[in-house]
């Protein structure tokens, strides 16, 4: 009995040692020499500790530093009391963070640019937001035509519901942003989303030339965007919101005034959690009309981008655009949209798009070569892969404008997060395979001249949207 108690004490003492730093005491060592049970215990313990010590030294991704920086700025900006003392300290801190090049790779450079913008804007409070908002609403009354291009980035309600229900097998094509383009003139609307064209005129709606009997309202996305400009029920009837001028920002070479509206939390529909929305406007300081708008929603503990819209006003718009019976589906952008949001979302020129695909192809080829090189150890391969990725990201950065860089960083941050949540690696592999097959079908669809073949291919593509 006494021996058992002694053994128990010895094993407790051994268990609480810090591996590799605290030696076995002399008394314990003497006990171990005479006790096979405790000696075996120590062997097992040392094996266990060796396994723990051998854990690989994972390092955080390069984007983490930038993410933290952005979060800090957002935190400072969201709390005015802290801002006064916080921003200057942060600016210096961020500068230091940016100097750690090893930390900064794909997202961080653009994240840092975003941080710069945020600091700049958060630090300058000018003008009166409510009067600016009113001027924007007044100016919108004088608009004759609107041409807008946007991307709907939110998860569609059916996908969101599936995620909530635990379905993880969701195709990438269902979570990419949807491009839409619209023209509005004299109460007539034409909205193209992906390849479908909706025309609204005289209280009636046609989709791809076919009347839609029950639809008596203007298309949802564009009417939402226009309501946002006019200030009419900005976040829905009765929902309170705050407004703030964030200062000036140069957008595509033009100086703009940045205005943010943020709703209070409003009740979700059908028992869904309350939602909070934020709307950013880049206003032309002369006309007070927005050039660009971003719609964001607080979800999953972060502000996520729901939609981006670019506006152009009072340009000549042909009436033939609203000739409902003549409107057919248009294939614009569909392949690009499926392949990547690059050309549509980031507004790459053709030259930029070619560079983009070339850089990504080079990167894929280099990765394959490294992985196939049997003369390299895994450690060497990992180092080379990291270097290759850094080179690739640097080349991508150099070909983009700052505005494109920011969008790119947003999307590259959001998309992996979605994918991590939704897919296992096996599902990701299957999806990639399915996606490649879809691309072949899609190209064949656009290449075919025969309507019957087109319909068959379209059915193959859209009839079975999940792998």
């Amino acid at each position, binding site marked *: 009995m006494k021996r058992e108690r002694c053994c128990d004490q010895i094993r*407790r003492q051994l268990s609480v040692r810090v*591996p590799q730093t605290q030696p076995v005491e002399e008394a314990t060592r003497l006990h171990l020499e005479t006790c096979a049970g405790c000696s075996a215990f120590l062997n097992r313990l040392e094996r266990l500790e060796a396994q723990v010590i*051998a854990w690989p030294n994972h390092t955080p991704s390069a984007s983490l530093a930038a993410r*933290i920086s952005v979060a800090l700025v957002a935190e400072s900006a969201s709390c005015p009391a802290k801002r006064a003392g916080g921003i200057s300290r942060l600016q210096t*801190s961020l500068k*230091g963070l940016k100097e750690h090049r090893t930390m900064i790779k794909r997202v961080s450079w653009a994240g840092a640019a975003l941080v710069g913008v945020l600091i700049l804007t958060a630090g300058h409070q000018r003008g009166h937001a409510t009067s600016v908002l009113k001027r924007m609403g007044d100016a919108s009354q004088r608009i004759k035509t609107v041409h807008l291009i946007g991307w709907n980035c939110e998860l569609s309600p059916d996908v969101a519901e599936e995620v909530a229900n635990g379905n993880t097998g969701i195709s990438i094509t269902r979570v990419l942003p949807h491009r839409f383009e619209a023209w509005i003139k004299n109460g007539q609307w034409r909205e193209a989303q992906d390849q479908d064209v909706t025309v609204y005129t005289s209280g009636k709606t046609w989709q791809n030339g076919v009347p839609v009997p029950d639809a008596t309202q203007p298309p949802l996305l564009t009417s939402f965007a226009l309501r946002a400009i006019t200030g009419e029920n900005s976040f829905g009837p009765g929902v309170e919101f705050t407004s703030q001028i964030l200062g000036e920002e140069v957008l595509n070479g033009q100086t703009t005034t940045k205005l943010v509206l943020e709703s209070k939390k409003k009740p979700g529909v059908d028992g869904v959690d309350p939602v909070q929305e934020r709307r950013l406007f880049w206003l032309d300081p002369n006309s007070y009309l927005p050039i660009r708008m971003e719609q964001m929603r607080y979800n999953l503990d972060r502000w996520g981008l729901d939609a981006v819209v670019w506006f152009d006003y009072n340009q000549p718009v042909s009436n033939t655009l609203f000739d409902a019976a003549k409107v057919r589906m248009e294939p614009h952008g569909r392949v690009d949209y499926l392949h990547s949001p690059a050309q549509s979302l980031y507004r790459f020129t053709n030259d930029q798009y070619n560079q983009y695909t070339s850089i990504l192809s080079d990167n894929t080829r280099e990765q394959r070569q490294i992985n196939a090189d049997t003369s390299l150890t895994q450690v060497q391969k*990992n180092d080379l892969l990291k270097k290759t990725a850094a080179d690739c990201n640097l080349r991508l950065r150099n070909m983009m404008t700052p505005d494109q860089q920011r969008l790119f960083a947003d999307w590259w941050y959001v998309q992996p997060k979605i994918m*991590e*949540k939704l897919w*296992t690696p096996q599902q990701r592999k299957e999806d990639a395979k399915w996606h490649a097959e879809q691309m072949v079908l899609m190209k064949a669809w656009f290449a075919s001249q025969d309507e019957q073949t087109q319909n068959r291919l379209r059915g193959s593509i859209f009839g079975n949207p999940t792998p």
Partner: protein
Amino acid sequence: MTLDEKNLARRFRDGEAGSFDTLYREYGTRIFRFCLRLCGNDACAEDLTQEVFLAAYVGAKRFEGRSSLATWLYRIALYQWRNMQKACRLETVPLDDTVAVLSSDPAQAGLERITLENALAALPEPLREAFLLVKSEGFLCREAAEILGIPEGTLKARLYTAVLKLQSLLEAPESATAHQQPGRATRPKEILQ
């Protein structure tokens, strides 16, 4: 606490320029690894690390310097981790992407890692935290107890129990992991934000 640590703690508390960078540079990777071991996947670990440093930044003035910066950051990490667990609704599985690729024998290292991680995942949370702090993070029992906010004796008891449980689980890996899919580590509660 070394002189450097004391100096950094003072600079950080006073909001001195550049001190946050130094803090992140010194402790970012350590905290990330600890978070990774707590939650089991990279994405969640990065989110958690971000929360830790955000909370540290916000609460810098409240850091009184009575404990070391490391102790303070680990305490925040555990606090944030518990908050995350409370908020989590769905169960997922961390994936084999993060299995030990740097080992000299990746295949074998992967198997060991999964087995050890499975065994750790099967431990009750208090035992797992105690084990990780001492055996993986190298804190003395006194420091680990301070981080967890428990008496040192309780910490030692938890650590001993954790060691016994892990030994028994690792000696019978088949039975311990029989219900799991091969190649997958599971956790009772995984974050899916």
